[in-house]
């Protein structure tokens, strides 16, 4: 196809210094190297598109450059028509001062320069660039009125419009929202989405809420990138595209490569879903090289990467269906639990597998947490009172994005950051150190009391084991929760019926009648099947809506759930699978290695 793509946006020179950590206020951190590299959202996307074989009409404004480097270096590409690029020698080209720590992210200070002077009148003059193209990409790193002008023109000509949201600080939320109407797709990262919808986008659920709000403003598709993942929200619902795990050099330009490749795919008549998968692949490739444009792949390289790794990057269809999402992602967590324990050669599979559906639902659907900001104020908190199920917690934290999946293989290893039982000082996302049974509920009460005093909406979730009910402190705490009317405490009892020395009844009869016991302690008791997501979700809803008393969800579970030969077996309480068992277990879970 030779239809052109118009890109209206910014040009910058990126001055990039790579450091180990981000400097705090007043702190000076030495960097190893400095780079002067071409950048700017508009230019990045133009380069991405051109390298993927599409003709680009590039509309932007530059000035003079008094630093080494050439902002236009990569724009001088046979596929890019620079006839619409305005150079005003009285202005300076935009400069982005980037402090990057590689994987851990960037901090950018931006001198807008000539970008700020790209005016609606310039767009009027560059009308042909739009009329001549099949798809129009508008970036918001230029004045909002200019972006509006470009979109209006594109709409008038009936073009497909891709709105690439970025650099929102200082812009009015409403002005940006007004750009959405009539666009085919609006692309942003989770920070920008959060800015537009005034909420922290911490997982797919919150992303979905933001997506719905933006849809209401007249865009057909909302795409929110969250690290390597992307979330699509449109009238059909929401879908998640997990992306590709690669060795990240820096994340600069990842979003632009994503948007560029997505646009190319769309211009070729691909579905939005296919376009996002393609975008994810391009985004991953760019992060493997330093700078925004240096790693932008050409068509052959991207197609090769995409083909080789498309299974891994494939999206989960029907993501709006929370149940299916949970099923899919929890199966992955079960796989990870088995793999982790295989690596560590010790640990507790039985109780991790019995609790995982509940832990997964909490982190992927229920709790208000921010993986990028694990200590977020007013977050919901989670205490794994049965701390030996740590693998369940760790794999949920990884899946939710608190740390990379690779870290899971460090379970129980020295200096690995994943202690045999949860350690809040070592692992991001762990709200409380646990391991010695019987203590979690008291701690939950303390956190809940603090939340009440602080006027915080924070809810405290605590999972206890059934054997743990034999600890006296549980019942001390049960009285406290009721006495203080801690309706922000939600306890979950993982009732799998087994403990180390045998079945609960054999070791010490007297646990039953359990429901009546908790009722007698004045708790709101909810009984569910702990592996049924519908029931789990409903129970959390019902607990949240119960005012004036704490709630306990008594979840009937199966120890070792999901692995046939581990189910209901006392032996798998605290024994890791052998290599042979690991292989069999993974096969059962549909994972061959």
């Amino acid at each position, binding site marked *: 196809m030779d239809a052109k793509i118009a890109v209206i946006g910014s040009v910058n020179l990126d001055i990039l210094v790579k450091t180990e950590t981000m400097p705090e206020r007043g702190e000076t951190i030495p960097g190893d190297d400095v780079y002067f590299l071409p950048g700017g959202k508009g230019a990045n996307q133009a380069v991405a598109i051109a390298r993927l074989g599409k003709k680009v009409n590039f509309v932007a404004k530059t000035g003079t450059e008094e630093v080494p480097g050439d902002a236009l270096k990569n724009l001088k590409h046979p596929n890019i028509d620079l006839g619409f690029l305005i150079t005003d020698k009285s202005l300076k080209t935009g400069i982005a001062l980037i402090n990057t720590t590689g994987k851990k992210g960037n901090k950018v200070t931006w001198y807008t320069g000539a970008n700020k002077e790209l005016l609606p009148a310039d767009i009027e003059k560059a009308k042909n660039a739009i009329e001549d193209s099949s798809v129009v990409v508008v970036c918001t790193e230029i004045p909002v009125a200019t972006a509006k002008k470009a979109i209006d023109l594109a709409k008038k000509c009936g073009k497909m419009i891709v709105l690439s949201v970025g650099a929102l600080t200082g812009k009015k939320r409403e002005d940006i929202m007004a750009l959405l109407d009539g666009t085919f797709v609006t692309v942003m990262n989770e920070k920008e989405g959060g800015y537009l919808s005034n909420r922290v986008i911490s997982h797919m659920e919150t992303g979905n809420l933001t997506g719905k709000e933006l849809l209401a403003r007249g865009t057909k598709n909302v795409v929110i990138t969250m690290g390597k993942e992307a979330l699509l929200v449109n009238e059909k619902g929401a879908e998640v595209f997990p992306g590709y795990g690669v060795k990240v050099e820096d994340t600069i330009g990842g979003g632009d490569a994503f948007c560029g490749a997505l646009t190319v795919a769309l211009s070729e008549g691909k579905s939005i879903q296919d376009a996002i998968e393609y975008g994810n692949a391009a985004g991953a490739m760019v992060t493997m090289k330093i700078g925004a444009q240096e790693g932008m792949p050409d068509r052959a390289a991207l197609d090769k990467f995409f083909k080789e790794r498309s299974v891994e990057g494939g999206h989960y269809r029907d993501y709006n269906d929370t149940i299916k999402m949970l099923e899919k992602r929890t199966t992955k967590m079960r796989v990870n639990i088995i793999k982790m324990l295989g690596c560590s050669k010790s640990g507790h599979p039985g109780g991790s597998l019995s609790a995982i559906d509940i832990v997964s639902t909490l982190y992927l659907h229920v709790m208000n947490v921010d993986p990028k900001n694990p200590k977020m104020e007013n977050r919901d908190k989670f205490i794994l009172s049965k701390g030996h199920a740590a693998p369940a917690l760790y794999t949920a934290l990884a899946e939710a994005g608190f740390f990379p999946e690779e870290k899971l293989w460090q379970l129980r290893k020295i200096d690995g950051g994943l202690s045999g039982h949860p350690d809040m000082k070592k692992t991001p996302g762990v709200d409380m150190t646990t391991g010695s049974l019987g203590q979690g509920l008291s701690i939950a009460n303390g956190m809940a009391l603090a939340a009440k*005093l602080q006027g915080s909406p924070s809810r405290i979730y605590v999972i206890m084991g059934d054997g743990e009910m034999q600890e006296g402190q549980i019942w001390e705490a049960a009285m406290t929760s009721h006495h*203080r009317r801690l309706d922000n405490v939600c306890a979950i009892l993982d009732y799998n019926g087994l403990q180390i020395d045998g079945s609960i009844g054999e070791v010490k009869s007297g646990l039953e009648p359990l429901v009546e016991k908790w009722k007698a302690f004045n708790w709101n008791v909810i009984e569910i099947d702990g592996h049924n997501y519908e029931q789990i979700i409903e129970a959390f809803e019902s607990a949240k809506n119960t005012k004036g008393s704490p709630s306990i969800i008594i979840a009937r579970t199966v120890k070792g759930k999901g692995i046939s030969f581990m189910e209901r077996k006392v032996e798998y309480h605290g024994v890791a699978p052998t290599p042979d068992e690991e292989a069999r277990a993974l096969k059962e879970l549909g994972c061959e290695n």
Partner: protein
Amino acid sequence: MAKTAMRVVYGETLVRLGAKYKNLVVLDADLAKSTQTGKFGKAYPDRFFDMGIAEQDMIGTAAGLAAAGMIPFASTFAMFGSGRPWEQIRNSVAYPNLPVKIVVTHAGISVGEDGPTHQACEDMAIMRAIPNMKVVAPADSVETEKLIEFLMTYTDSPVYVRLTRMNTEVVFDSSYKFEFGKGIKMRKGKDITIISTGIMLTIALSAAEMLKEKGISAEVIHMPSVKPIDEKMIVASAKNTGKVLTIEEHSIIGGLGSAVAEVLSEKLPVKLKRIGMNDIFAESGTPEALFEKYGFTDKNILKEALAMMKPGKKAAKPVKKSKKNK
């Protein structure tokens, strides 16, 4: 000297600071009248939690409060604030290094008539053994007040503060400033070093007076911070006097005497005598009678100090007449 109860001052200080520190919360386990935290409860009912007779739950709840950014003080008798919830303190407070302040009262045998079930003489030992935990035993109500004030903004670690039931003489004035790991030289001397902690300070000072009459110059060090302990001061003083005597209202196993012995045996072995509960349980009785019977008196310090002067070690240069007073 005026006598005041440090626990009364503890309660009053909490009330006073409650106005300034809005995050200050106080927990008790059904002993709020005795520990005096009830005063805080009256002043700030929404920030006071009587947990009932459930010390393990109290410590866990305090840990949760600290993890959520509050400043929790948890109080009960020393016996029930250290022994009963030891494992909760170890695993839910000290291991995650949460800044919970465990302020116990009624430590030692001076609880008196309640008898050995209530006489905590092992608490410093078991608290001292926990990593991250700090252990402090103030001597009077002024030191208690300054310590509590200091702890309001201290968040580096959990702290165990040991108060007693009985009224004690006021030794310090308002210029007192608390610091972890710092001993306080109360009196300079060259023949023997007496190191005390908690309310034993007044007895140590009185013994030093008696020793002076015998021509023996005793250096008296008050060691409120039993952990971390002031190694430098101990070693410097021992170098000077060549003899060290410790006194604590606690077992000689694991408390101040042990801590001093640990320092000296590694850094500067000198003659050492530990006065304390000698691996036995005490009994019911008035505090005075118990102190008399178990050796927590100036007379007993005098006796032990004189005994230390006796053998023909090179040690003290002057007065030999001390030998006479056996």
